[in-house]
């Protein structure tokens, strides 16, 4: 379970590294669903290359593909990205909250030192 989850997140991050794949996701975010040829249109790469990118996105769970007659419709599947974002947010919350308390602690220590200095100790 742990490893399964870990590999899933790795696949999501690895999929997002490529600018073409991010562009594909951005387009799918605008349109509810697109055929593969419509998706491939704006890119200066051949259809097989687009198919490869779609495989990577599909393996990461970021898109779903469904066949309708002779065309394949591609749709966005946002849940894995939400998980990836939750994961980052947990770290952000950890440090943000820890640094708030660090600030309070250090400023109190500073005030104490300043007070002692004022008393000439």
């Amino acid at each position, binding site marked *: 379970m742990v490893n399964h989850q870990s590999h899933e997140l790795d696949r999501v*991050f690895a999929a997002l590294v490529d600018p073409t794949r991010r562009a594909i996701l951005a387009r799918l975010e605008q349109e509810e669903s697109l055929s593969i040829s419509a998706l491939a249109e704006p890119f200066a790469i051949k259809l097989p290359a687009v198919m490869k990118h779609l495989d990577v996105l599909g393996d990461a769970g970021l898109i779903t593909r469904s066949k309708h007659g002779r065309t394949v419709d591609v749709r966005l599947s*946002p849940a894995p990205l939400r998980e990836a*974002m939750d994961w980052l947010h947990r770290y952000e919350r950890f440090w943000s909250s820890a640094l708030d308390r660090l600030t309070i*602690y*250090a400023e109190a220590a*500073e005030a104490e030192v300043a007070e002692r200095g004022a008393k000439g100790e």
Partner: protein
Amino acid sequence: MTSLTLVRRIAARPSIVFDALSTPQGVAAWWGPDDLPVLLAEIDARVGGAFRVRFQTLDGLQHEACGEYLEVVPPRRLVMSWRYAFGGEPEEEGRTSRIEIDLIPVASGTELTLTHAQLRNEASKASHEHGWTGSLAKLVQRFANLSSTQA
């Protein structure tokens, strides 16, 4: 965004902030995501020295983070490795990341910059190669909006 950077201005001189970061008493006062007492803080802040901090979260779980000091330059810089001995993010099992803290003196006290880097090896390697972190953050934000409206 597989490294996380936070900047804070603290109204205390760098030496005081550095002590708060590098002594057991100091670390026990702030470590962890929730406002709960730290259960254990072992800090040996010299190069090659170890730290071990056990803390709890509001969900009742205990966590233990540990690592080694890689750079100790009082009162300016502290670098350490970090991993969870237990209670970490399940996706981070067995992984080591890196924490860098820099302290710069400013008129009001200290500017602290904390970077938690190498959170995911694969992705952080890629971020250096492609500079994709900003666009990923934006993309992720858009997906967040999308998935919450679909939920």
